[in-house]
């Protein structure tokens, strides 16, 4: 039982709503349908089970809040990127669980839209949105983290079948996924970036083994995945070798700029929650009225505003048909570091709470301690800080390598 009230209208955005009316409809739907137990700023919060998350995300999709910009032909809602931004502003405003299928919705889906066959689009995309297929990402390997050119997992063609052998690591959510977006090598290791191919591999296929890894937040959310001579049909190969990966790189550039677009508005929700919790506690209420902390809170507000500016500029550029290029690295670098600064401030403040601790402070501590730990990963995944700095230096500043 998710507590999702099915008596509420299933569709937030029926008809031809646009602009402010579209925003208001989404806001109403979310407030009416998001169960209190899913809200990490609520006393009723209890981390949702996988099944609850699946049901909730399927309800979000039916309400028009997933696959927003995907074509209607493949189950999407066919809306614009600016409408996607509006929806994400409203999604971010509430403390909502992260998607258990963000790899499907924000990585595999867009790549399939770009390079998949018609048959693949019809087969894979609606299943992602309806939460029948949860995806995970099989890119990183023990010997190829940031440097994907060092990839060793091999795909060998055998008639209409590919045979995949190798090992992936840091594969978030593999234990709960049906499909893995596997990047594998079709030629020799010396080919570096050449000969890479992508596959939609079923995780229940013979020869696939998933081993969870416990992470610093005490969860087992990411995994090692072993492929031992796994048979994959040609119909599950995404694009030809090279072609698929090259197209995927372009998709990834856009994704880096647009994924989890709600992030700055969620960040704002976290700041509101932190301040609300502090103001309910006598000692913390005094602290947040102290000029030193006022300035620190001011800095968080500026960080959030700058992040919004990065996101909105990227949306405007894409909506105007501009290439986003490497600019997604700017927003990624900014939010990941800003969020870590904020999480550290939240811990610093909450650690100074009065005794006995009030429920509001306990709720906030539970949320912000988790956020603090999870935020350590934010400067590592999707390209580490150092990788982003390298991209900015190489591709935006085009600095000479100095020979």
């Amino acid at each position, binding site marked *: 039982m998710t507590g999702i009230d099915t008596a509420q209208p299933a569709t937030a955005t029926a008809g031809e709503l646009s602009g402010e009316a579209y925003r208001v409809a989404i806001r109403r739907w979310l407030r009416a349908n998001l169960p209190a137990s899913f809200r990490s700023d609520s006393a009723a919060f209890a981390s949702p089970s996988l099944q609850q998350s699946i049901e909730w995300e399927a309800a979000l999709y039916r309400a028009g809040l997933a696959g927003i910009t995907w074509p209607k032909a493949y189950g999407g809602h066919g809306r614009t990127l600016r409408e996607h931004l509006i929806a994400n502003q409203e999604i971010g405003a509430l403390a909502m669980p992260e998607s258990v299928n963000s790899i499907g919705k924000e990585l595999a889906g867009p790549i399939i839209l770009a390079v998949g066959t018609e048959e693949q689009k019809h087969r894979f995309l609606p299943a992602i949105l309806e939460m029948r297929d949860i995806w995970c990402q099989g890119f990183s390997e023990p010997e190829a983290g940031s440097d994907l050119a060092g990839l060793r997992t091999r795909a060998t063609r055998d008639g209409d079948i590919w045979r995949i052998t190798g090992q992936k690591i840091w594969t978030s959510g593999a234990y709960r996924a049906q499909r893995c977006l596997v990047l594998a090598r079709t030629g020799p290791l010396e080919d570096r970036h050449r000969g890479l191919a992508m596959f939609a591999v079923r995780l229940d296929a013979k020869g696939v083994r998933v081993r969870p890894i416990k992470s610093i937040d005490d969860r087992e959310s990411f995994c090692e995945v072993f492929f031992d001579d796994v048979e994959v049909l040609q119909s599950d190969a995404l694009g030809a070798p090279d072609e698929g990966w090259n197209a995927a790189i372009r998709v990834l550039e856009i994704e880096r700029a647009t994924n989890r677009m709600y992030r700055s508005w969620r960040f704002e929700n976290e700041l509101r929650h932190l301040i609300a919790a502090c103001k309910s506690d006598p000692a913390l*209420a005094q602290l947040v009225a102290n000029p030193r902390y006022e300035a620190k809170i001011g800095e968080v507000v500026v960080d959030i505003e700058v992040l919004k500016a*990065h996101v909105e500029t990227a949306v405007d550029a894409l909506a105007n048909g501009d290439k986003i290029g490497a600019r997604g690295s700017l927003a990624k670098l900014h939010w990941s570091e800003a969020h870590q600064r904020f999480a550290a401030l939240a811990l610093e403040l909450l650690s100074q709470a009065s005794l006995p601790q009030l429920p509001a402070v306990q709720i906030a501590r539970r949320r912000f301690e988790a956020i603090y730990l999870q935020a350590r990963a934010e400067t590592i995944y999707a390209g580490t800080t150092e990788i982003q700095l390298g991209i900015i230096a190489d591709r*935006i500043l085009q*600095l000479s*390598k*100095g020979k």
Partner: protein
Amino acid sequence: MTTLIGEGLQPSEFAVTAARAVADCAALGPREQAKHLANDGLLGVIASEEVGGLNLPLAFAVPVVAAASSGLLSFPLMEVLLLSRALKEALPRAAGAVVSGDMLATIAWQGSVSAEREGESIVLDGCVARAAGVRDADTLLVRLNTGGAVLMPTDSEGVVIEDAAGLDLTVPDHAVRLQGVAVPAASVVPENAWSVLCSDANVLRAAAILGSAETCLAMAQEHASTRRQFGRALSYNQALRHSLARQKLALEGIRHALTRSVGDEAGALERDAVFLAAAAYGCAISEGALQVHGGMGFTWDVPVHRHLRRVRALQAQGNASEVLAGLGRRTVAAIAPASDIAVRA
């Protein structure tokens, strides 16, 4: 003018004109600079048509002020642009003279003075500071401690302009003492015009910092690419590549926040935020650019220090620390304690 926008005129189109005009001004004195800038239509970009301006939105002043800062224009252009608009209701003739370049005017950003009414005059006493380029100005806008501001001739009896203080060499600022300075009571600019002026100033300060920061980064990039050490260009070193990449991130942060601050939905929050982002990032960029230049960066001849001085002066002029704490204070005040939120949810 709305027709210009209707014809698709974009703020960026002013950048080229402004850069050229700023370059032309290099060898001119302040009065000739005013005339030159006025002839190019730059002093009236945001002023109303009644006073000879183009009546364009504030967004159009952004590239103009950025170009002035980038070219180290020794003219208080930001102040003139703001006055061309702020004086329109109370002192339309003065606004017109500012737009045409006939009157050199500036603003004292720090401090306020007392005002005693004496018949048709008011008598001003007190001390103000951060008056950019006031030594050459005909008039100075001074904040009144009763609210609003007053436009006062700088050659009035009882006005003492002190030697330039502060780091900025490009548009030096001065403290000004006023002892029994009598000005017509009609010279008062109301409080609402003053607060609009201050809010617009936050955006234009950010624009000025953007211009300086952009120039600093370009210089640092050039130096890192051409200066060779250990047999390679400096930019071969990852430490320098990453330092420059961080400066680029900061620069684009200012640029994007500026775009946002002049958008249709922007208010006080976006304007405070852009100034604060520019002040913090602008310092990091100009100090970082100086560091990339090594010993050369510490010399008088490399102009990075002029930009650094200007950025620091603008940060102080806008009172960044107080704006930052104020932003935090308002954020905290606007949020209800958690128990109330639970009830609302």
